[in-house]
């Protein structure tokens, strides 16, 4: 059975029309299922764990990046997830802004999302982890004053720009290729048009006294902190126009 998890902000009346449209489309496609509204529950983990126990296999985040990350955190941290990992699927129906994860999955809008759920194309995807938070796309920090510590060596960035730790690419125009199945994070440092650095790593420590690390455009994290990656941890339902092989 499908479980649709609606984020808090969808209670706003301006999303009523979109939600109605999604529900009608899902009914037409025979994909209707149980709806859980995050505004009505305090314990997401408990609610999801309960659904897994009851036999639910597909969890669909209806909302934005934050919704997806909340649900991933709740699924992964469930005590019983490891037993069901290969059977539990994650889908996304993007609503509103901040939907780079959906874009990475090749999902442009809510209508396309419904069709993608029906097609059920599944990919195993790595999951980034930093300070107890999971992330699918990337972690970003200002480059000036940033020190990165990797296996046996450190990198100091002097110029202004951006350091991105990428798990899953969210921008098609980016000059690098990132593989979300390789069990590695891609470190991409851009301090000018022609000044780009790139390397791959399993873990990385970040230090910056002035700036915070931002994951998936949502959560700010103080440094020093360590990032790592878990290989093929999530089974995601993706579109054919996804930004990875």
């Amino acid at each position, binding site marked *: 059975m499908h479980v649709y998890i609606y984020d808090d902000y969808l209670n706003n009346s301006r999303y009523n029309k979109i939600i109605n449209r999604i529900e009608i489309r899902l009914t037409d496609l025979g994909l209707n299922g149980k709806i859980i509204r995050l505004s009505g529950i305090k314990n997401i983990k408990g609610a999801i764990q309960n659904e897994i126990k009851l036999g639910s296999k597909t969890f669909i985040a209806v909302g934005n990046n934050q919704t997806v990350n909340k649900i991933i955190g709740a699924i992964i941290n469930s005590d019983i997830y490891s037993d069901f990992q290969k059977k539990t699927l994650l889908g996304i129906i993007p609503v509103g802004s901040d939907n780079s994860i959906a874009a990475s999955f090749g999902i442009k809008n809510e209508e396309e999302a419904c069709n993608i759920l029906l097609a059920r194309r599944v990919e195993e995807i790595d999951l980034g982890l930093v300070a107890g938070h999971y992330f699918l796309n990337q972690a970003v920090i200002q480059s000036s004053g940033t020190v990165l510590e990797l296996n046996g060596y450190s990198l100091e960035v*002097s110029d202004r720009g951006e350091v991105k730790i990428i798990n899953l690419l969210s921008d098609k125009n980016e000059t690098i290729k990132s593989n979300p199945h390789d069990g590695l994070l891609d470190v991409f*440092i851009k301090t000018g048009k022609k000044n780009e650095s790139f390397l791959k790593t399993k873990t990385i420590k970040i230090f910056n006294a002035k700036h915070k690390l931002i994951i998936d455009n949502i959560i700010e994290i103080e440094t020093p902190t360590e990032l790592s990656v878990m290989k093929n941890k999530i089974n995601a339902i993706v579109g054919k126009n996804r930004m990875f092989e």
Partner: protein
Amino acid sequence: MFSKDNKLEKFKDAETIIGSSIKVKGNFQGQGDIVIEGFLEGSLKTLASVFIGNQAKIAANIEAKDAIVNGEVHGNIKAKNYLAIGNTAKIFGDLQYGEISIEKGAVINGQLLMLSEDHKKNEKLKDEKIENSVEK
């Protein structure tokens, strides 16, 4: 990977690229091609190729299969297969190589030693063992 004029042909294919605004300290090890345009202090080792750009400043011993040097290196360089030195290169250290090419204008302050055929064979066997263990 390298063209005749000591420029990278497939810049994007490199496993690691260190830009000119980056300073690396420590023991840098890789399996694939490495491009250094910035600063490096420590050591640099890869099973594949190393490209040192003309803005790069290196204070490290370098060990690679192939190496192409256009920048400043304070340290020894060991290229088991091929070592190419561009006209902007300044090297202060000893060089070991299978084959070498040096452009007019390059500065080399150190000893040059061509690796023997036996040494090359032994190194090749060592590399194959490492590659196999990495694959496993």
